[in-house]
């Protein structure tokens, strides 16, 4: 009987080492929640901006370029705040787990996240710069490329991320058939889904551990 317990322990060790050496497991669910709230605030600000442009309350002489510029500012603001918050929360988590923050698993995760994300970013920049009148495609493209990035990266962190990726892609494709409601889909995909998934992961991996 003792022998069996020993072998079970050995198997557990094997599993732990396989995961720890190939997956980034310091990802904090709270960083998802934080990113989600940031996205919702950003979407609200963008909505206000668009509404005020539509009502003509923009000052005299302001053009669609001014609106674009303001929306871009909001977008980058959201990205920056969400990234910094996520980074800090993940750093805290890796310290709590006593794992190195920067190792091969971090590099693998970031690289595989970046491939679809950078492609998507360039794709969207091209839409903005050389294809006037395609604003409607921006939000759906964001969602689809982000979903692909998550699926690609899911081999290098918690596998739950994979399902979140599917949700983002489906949402992006639905948005593609409903051009004009981009901001709402964007808010659901980057706001609501992040909060929901972040909480799910927080309760699954962090509470009680």
């Amino acid at each position, binding site marked *: *009987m003792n022998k069996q317990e020993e*072998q079970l322990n*050995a198997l557990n060790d*094997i599993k732990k*080492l396989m995961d*720890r*050496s190939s997956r980034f497991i310091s990802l904090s669910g709270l960083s998802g929640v934080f990113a989600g709230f940031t996205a919702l605030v950003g979407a609200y600000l963008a909505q206000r901006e668009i509404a005020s442009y539509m009502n003509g309350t923009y000052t005299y002489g302001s053009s669609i370029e001014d609106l674009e510029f303001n929306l871009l500012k909001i977008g980058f603001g959201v990205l920056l705040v969400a990234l910094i918050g996520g980074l800090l929360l993940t750093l805290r988590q890796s310290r709590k787990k006593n794992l*190195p923050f920067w*190792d*091969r698993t971090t590099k693998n995760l970031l690289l595989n996240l970046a491939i679809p994300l950078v492609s998507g970013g360039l794709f969207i920049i091209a839409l903005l710069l050389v294809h006037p009148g395609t604003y409607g495609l921006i939000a759906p493209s964001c969602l689809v490329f982000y979903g692909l990035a998550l699926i690609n990266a899911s081999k290098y962190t918690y596998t739950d991320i994979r399902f979140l990726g599917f949700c983002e892609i489906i949402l992006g494709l639905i948005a593609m058939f409903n051009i004009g409601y981009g901001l709402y889909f964007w808010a659901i995909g980057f706001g609501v889904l992040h909060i929901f998934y972040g909480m799910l992961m927080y309760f699954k991996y962090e509470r009680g551990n």
Partner: protein
Amino acid sequence: MKNPIEALNKIFDSRIRLGVMSVLIVNDSISFNELKQLLELTDGNLASHLNTLEQAQYLKVQKSFIGKKTNTTYILTELGRHAFKAHLDALEKMIKGI
């Protein structure tokens, strides 16, 4: 009936060697320092276990230079992969059998 323990690989009796193999099976290649950090071992201890595995031809050693420092990385051989899988199968059978 055959004794199930016979199917277990003697080389993997050591937890450390088992650990090295577990890490290598999911990573294409891994450096000495990364292994040391993952398994929380001292240089000498890890080196002697790696030596055993190398002599069994379960892993291959690759030395390269990063600047002036040597960088030693390890990769699993086909033989090592088979041996590890067979060992895991044997473990599984044993646990199910008892």
